[in-house]
């Protein structure tokens, strides 16, 4: 019997009557009012997610940059202090141990924000190869992380716009916060990191500003509408970055773990590709459903914005072109679907 971990905001979620579920060893809010209203609040205004279950690792030292450059797939030479980068930690087969964001705090000091379920795996693989002069520490328990996302998020928080994948220290109603211009919804927004003891006060201030609490249910439908992969569903240790469409985050001209395998897949061309698709009629695709021709659904849901079933899955390359008709086995019924371009949901301009 494993005891579920709780974030510093657990009591706040209970007070809001959130429905709590077990996720990656954590007891997390899956919804407050409902997935659909929370999803729509983020698309039209602003919502806040407690993502304090995510892991935070610090890598520090004169060789920290050199060390991470040899471990992570993307090119950290392109990141200045104050900048951040989406990147992958890969294994020797080119498989994905985790996808994460690296924040360059100082020339020789990085913060890595990793998936909750991979916190230990990332820590262990980094520790295994740690160089003298690059100290790896798990600081997850010291911090809380709130993602505030939506077209009115900055206005509601009183923050100025800034380029995405940057960060700065800032202040919100007297609380000192690290303001990260990152997110997982496809909307404008920030991720606010604070010491764990400030979490409840920050949460209260954010809600007072009219931001709607949103749970993991909406987080999943939002990310899937914009085709952000979810580790454990769409990517994992047995899937490679090229087939997953993450070649853009893989600097194949530098050396990192598994790069030879990724170069080979890139050169030969992948056997299958991760593609987004929409259902043509009824039916909601779900993880694990078969796609006729040898494919498999890795994520599926009902899109609140498109009001139809959407998903992502691996299909043979011959079926990967946008427009290709697919057939998904929805509990014994063959349901027509079509490969589309990313993102599935295109944000309304203006």
């Amino acid at each position, binding site marked *: 019997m494993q005891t579920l971990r709780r974030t510093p905001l657990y009591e706040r979620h209970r007070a809001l009557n959130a429905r709590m579920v077990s996720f990656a060893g954590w007891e997390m809010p*899956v*919804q407050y009012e*409902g*997935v*659909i209203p929370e999803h729509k609040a983020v698309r039209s205004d602003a919502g806040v997610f407690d993502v304090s279950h995510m892991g935070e690792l610090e890598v520090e030292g004169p060789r920290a940059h050199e060390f991470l450059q040899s471990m992570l797939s993307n090119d950290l030479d392109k990141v200045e202090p104050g900048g951040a980068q989406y990147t992958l930690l890969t294994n020797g087969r080119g498989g994905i141990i985790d996808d994460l964001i690296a924040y360059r705090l100082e020339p020789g000091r990085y913060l890595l924000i990793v998936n909750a379920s991979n916190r230990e795996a990332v820590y262990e693989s980094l520790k295994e190869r740690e160089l003298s002069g690059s100290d790896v520490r798990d600081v997850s328990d010291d911090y809380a992380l709130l993602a505030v996302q939506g077209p009115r998020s900055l206005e509601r928080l009183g923050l100025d716009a800034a380029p995405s994948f940057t960060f700065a220290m800032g202040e919100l109603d007297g609380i000192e916060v690290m303001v990260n211009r990152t997110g997982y919804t496809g909307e404008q927004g920030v991720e606010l990191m604070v010491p764990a003891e400030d979490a409840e006060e920050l949460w209260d201030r954010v809600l007072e500003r009219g931001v709607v609490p949103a749970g993991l*249910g909406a987080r999943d*439908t939002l990310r899937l509408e914009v085709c952000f992969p979810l580790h454990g569903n769409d990517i994992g240790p047995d899937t490679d970055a090229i087939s997953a469409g993450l070649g853009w985050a893989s600097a194949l001209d530098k050396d990192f773990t598994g790069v030879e395998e990724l170069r080979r897949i890139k050169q030969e061309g992948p056997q299958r590709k991760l593609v987004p698709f929409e259902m043509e009629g*009824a*039916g*909601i695709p*779900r993880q694990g459903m078969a796609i006729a021709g040898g494919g498999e659904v890795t994520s599926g*849901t*009902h899109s*609140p914005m498109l*009001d139809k079933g959407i998903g992502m899955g691996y299909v043979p390359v011959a079926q990967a072109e946008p427009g290709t008709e697919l057939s998904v086995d929805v*509990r014994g019924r063959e349901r027509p679907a079509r490969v589309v371009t990313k993102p599935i949901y295109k944000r309304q301009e203006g």
Partner: protein
Amino acid sequence: MAAEESYPDDIRYHREHDWARIEGDEAVLGITWYAQDALGELVHYEPPEQGATVSRGTPYGEVESVKAVSDVIAPISGEVLEVNKAVVDAPETVNEDPYGNGWLIRIRLSDPAEAEQLLDAAAYREVLAEQ
């Protein structure tokens, strides 16, 4: 808007969270407040064909929310006379009014005596208390 929790006295219940309103030799079937609350906002209802046979204790359709899909279990046996098209078109009707506009099918009973095995509201509440 989601409905308030309730278990009316004028209908009969099945422990798989389904209800039947018996009207002579016909019955209207649906899912309980507890079932719709556990699923969340419904986004899809897969009904049986009109004329199909439904059998007590076995699935006759599916209801699906953003997060989950669930079989709908027949509390009582019969032949499908009518499917609620309003729920096919707007599945959230079940969340709004699970015992009224959110009914799922109307059947002609093949064995009206089966009704005696259904639970009344008090007995169904005891089932819920054990969940």
